[in-house]
């Protein structure tokens, strides 16, 4: 049997409105999420979180709980298997909260102190809520305030330096015609997705297998292997459907607790977080206190841009909400000073949440620009255009692309900016007061290496395999369309298999880089397959390679005699994409992903 990819020509599927590939499954409830996977002999774990903000666990009274109906075990710091946290993960050093039940320290309210295991989730919950944990409380400080005495400048990170400066800000401010000096605060924000964090772990033929809800199965598998000192090949993590992530669905205590319990009980264990538990265990965005000082000359040209932001982290792990760095690529000024400082308090550890840094930082900086526009009488767009840099304002490096001024022009045209009445509260349409305003923002534009495989099946369909995660973004559908366009076939003929660490390394769904990174790898694999088929590669009657034996991460190239399939495979591991102090701009550098094909 011979199949040619040009048999059904459908071009331009990408960019058109398409129904989500798994949409029907999701709306009918047929889609199975991590907390839905049925496994025989499944036990259920319920996390118990600390009720004090700082101290030590003095006792855990598990005996009465063990006598409750269905209760199988209580895991806590006195009986838990030891784990390893001495490693560097995909997004840095592990948050110590992953070392569940390793010691008696309680660094904040809502720290995991025990896991109660029972036959049924209701029994586990009842027992977990009945478990008496006693603490030796210690004085705590949970109050984030601007200028907290313990505020410090953190060391530079892969995401950029904590402080960047150019010129003499104070001198330029003193010489400025117009000066804005304003303080802005943003509250802490929690990115609890619709689907709570959930993991179902079991040992399957000597491998630890976890059905999980995450933004990158490779990342979670690699970390679980480190944590439990296993070979990378001994861990498989899948997350076929994910009900939202927003930066919170990385490696979190529930996967570690489930895997630990599955090992202790030697049976499958599921741990599902309650929404309430998520507030202290999955990260959040730090509150910020920011001060922005802008100095401009008569024409509105900036002489000084000074943006200092403060945020909070926990006492056990440093995460810095890098709010001040946004100005480093946004506006030219004779002098620049931007700093992100942080204070360690007895609070849960923040993490990456939806444009970490850019979101609160842009808010403050753009408000200050608007205040400067008001003060100087210059139109807010014109003010920004006058301060548009032609290269990195601090780094001096060229932008790969930028186009911000063109965005202003198009936006102004569409909103009728020129004819607007800038006074607030004057335009009413029915019950609504309407106003106009503008703001600019910057986000790094990178990509991570990914591997993909595509197989021509005997029945004329194609299977794409890539360890991508569809966290609700529609990535599965996008990959389907990229592959269909590349193969010039109807999207109905393309099947996408994804979100499985056994499919090999791939970028995680984060930093707005997932689909972009995966699409490169898929496009290259597809293109290579087309070349092979064009050269006369036939598909044998048995067609597809065996789906149940997907490639091992260590063996990215899979060629079966007579079965045309192509795989693109880049370097690994992925390194930090964000080079904001460098050439990162409004749409700046994109590292080539999936560029080397073996």
């Amino acid at each position, binding site marked *: 049997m011979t199949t040619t990819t040009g048999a059904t020509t459908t071009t331009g599927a990408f960019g058109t409105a398409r129904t989500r590939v798994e949409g029907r499954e999701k709306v009918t409830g047929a889609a199975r999420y991590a907390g839905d996977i049925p496994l025989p002999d499944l036990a259920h774990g319920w996390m118990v979180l600390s009720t004090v903000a700082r101290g030590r666990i003095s006792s855990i009274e598990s005996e009465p709980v063990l006598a409750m109906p269905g209760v199988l075990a209580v895991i806590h710091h006195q009986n838990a298997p030891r784990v390893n946290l001495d490693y560097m993960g995909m997004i840095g050093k592990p948050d110590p909260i992953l070392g569940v039940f390793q010691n008696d320290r309680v660094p904040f309210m809502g720290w995991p102190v025990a896991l109660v295991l029972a036959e049924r*989730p209701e029994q586990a919950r009842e027992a977990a809520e009945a478990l008496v944990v006693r603490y030796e409380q210690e004085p705590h400080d949970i109050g984030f305030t601007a200028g907290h005495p313990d505020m410090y400048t953190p060391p530079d990170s892969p995401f950029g330096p904590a402080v960047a400066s150019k010129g003499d800000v104070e001198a330029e401010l003193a010489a400025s015609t117009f000066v804005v000096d304003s303080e802005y605060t943003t509250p802490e924000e929690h990115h609890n997705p619709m689907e709570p964090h959930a993991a179902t772990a079991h040992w399957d033929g000597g491998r630890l297998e976890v059905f999980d809800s995450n933004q990158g199965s490779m990342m979670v598998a690699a970390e679980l292997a480190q944590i439990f000192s296993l070979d990378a090949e001994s861990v498989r993590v899948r997350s076929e459907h994910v009900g939202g992530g927003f930066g919170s669905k990385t490696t979190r205590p529930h996967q570690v607790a489930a895997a630990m319990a599955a090992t202790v009980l030697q049976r499958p264990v599921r741990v599902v977080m309650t929404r309430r538990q998520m507030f202290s265990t999955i990260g959040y965005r730090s509150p910020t206190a920011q001060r922005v000082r802008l100095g401009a000359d008569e024409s509105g040209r900036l002489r000084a841009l000074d943006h200092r932001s403060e945020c909070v982290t926990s006492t056990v792990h440093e995460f810095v909400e890098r709010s001040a760095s946004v100005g480093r690529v946004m506006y030219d000024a004779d002098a620049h000073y931007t700093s992100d400082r942080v204070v360690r308090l007895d609070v849960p550890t923040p993490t990456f949440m939806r444009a970490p840094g850019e979101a609160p930082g842009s808010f403050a900086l753009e408000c200050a620009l608007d205040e400067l526009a008001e003060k100087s009488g210059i139109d807010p767009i014109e003010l920004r255009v006058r301060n548009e840099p032609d290269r990195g304002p601090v780094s001096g490096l060229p932008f790969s692309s930028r186009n911000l001024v063109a965005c202003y022009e198009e936006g102004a045209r569409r909103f009728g900016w020129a004819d607007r009445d800038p006074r607030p509260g004057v335009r009413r349409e029915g019950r609504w007061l309407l106003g106009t305003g503008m703001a600019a923002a910057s986000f790094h534009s990178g990509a991570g290496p990914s591997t993909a495989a595509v197989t021509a099946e005997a029945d004329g369909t194609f299977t794409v395999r890539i360890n991508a995660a569809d966290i609700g973004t529609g990535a599965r559908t996008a990959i389907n369309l990229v592959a269909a366009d590349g193969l010039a076939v109807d999207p109905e003929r393309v099947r996408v298999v994804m979100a499985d660490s056994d499919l090999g390394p791939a970028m995680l769904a984060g930093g707005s880089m997932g689909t972009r990174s995966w699409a490169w790898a898929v496009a290259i694999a597809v293109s290579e397959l087309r070349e092979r088929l064009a050269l006369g590669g036939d598909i044998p009657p048995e067609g597809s390679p065996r789906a149940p034996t997907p490639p091992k991460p260590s063996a990215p190239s899979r060629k079966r005699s007579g079965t045309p399939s192509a795989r693109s495979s880049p370097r690994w591991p992925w390194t930090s994409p964000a080079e904001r102090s460098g050439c990162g701009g409004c749409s700046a550098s994109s590292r080539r992903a999936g560029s080397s094909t073996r």
Partner: protein
Amino acid sequence: MKEFGYQRVLEVSEAISVLGADPDARFLGGGTNLVDLMKTGVERPGHLVDVTELPLDRVEVTPEGGLRIGATVTNSDLAAHPEVRRRYPALAQAVLAGASGQLRNMATVGGNLLQRTRCGYFTDVAGPCNKRLPGSGCPAIEGEHHNHAILGASEHCVATHPSDMGVALAAFDAVVRYETADGPGELPLADFYLPVGDTPHLETALPSGALITGVTLPPAPVAAHSRYRKVRERASYAFAIGSIAAALDVRDGVVHEVRLAFGAVASRPWRALEAERALTGGPATAEAFAAAADAELAAAEALPHNGYKVPLMRNLVVALLTELTEEATR
């Protein structure tokens, strides 16, 4: 979550006898509130008596021109009923303003009246709450209370009743019908919810073991020209921060009859009788509406973070009555 028994009953008498025999049993309607509270441990019944199959699922026009609504009528069916929409449009609007389509398909009229406050301290079993644990204290007064009561609260509890439906029922003088082992009884909605006082854990005047069988709406021609408006922090699927049911009969620029009830301001749907008195027989003008709202809200006692509700309710009164006046005179 505590283990519990479950039983479905088909007759009212059976429901009452089962509940009477087991002090740990509770009636289960749509379960949209009770089951949530069971999961968090606020409610811990040993036995659930499912009453949704009882023959109480009809909406009937009474000979006088009012409505008899069965206790197990779902919120969705109530809102969709043509006689509800025609005779008491504010009731249909209020029901549709609440919850989501899925919840309204489950939730019942009886359950809606008996739903519990959404005060975060009430639902947090780790902390004190006078409603949940009498005598333990009320953290809301010093804490998070931006959506708490401004009317009829006490130093022991400032929680609000979350129902939208109940606000419209209060405006239209609804009467709650119930059944006990001793026979049937009735309670006007005005007497159904108890004052907060120092017993916030005692919420209704229903006799022990009683089953709500339905609600009667007396005829009210004024209700045909009525409206419900709800203010909330997002456009759907949120509880009110302030709501209002209003019916108005204006003749020659004079208020002939008016009904007003407020939601999200008190431990019960709040009938604004002071405002009604101030308006009746007076001019249907924005100034009069504002003065009437002020008369009602004179008793308001705001906490540091819910004072916005006073002007909010005042503006709602003026806006909604102005709309109804303009429509009537058009």
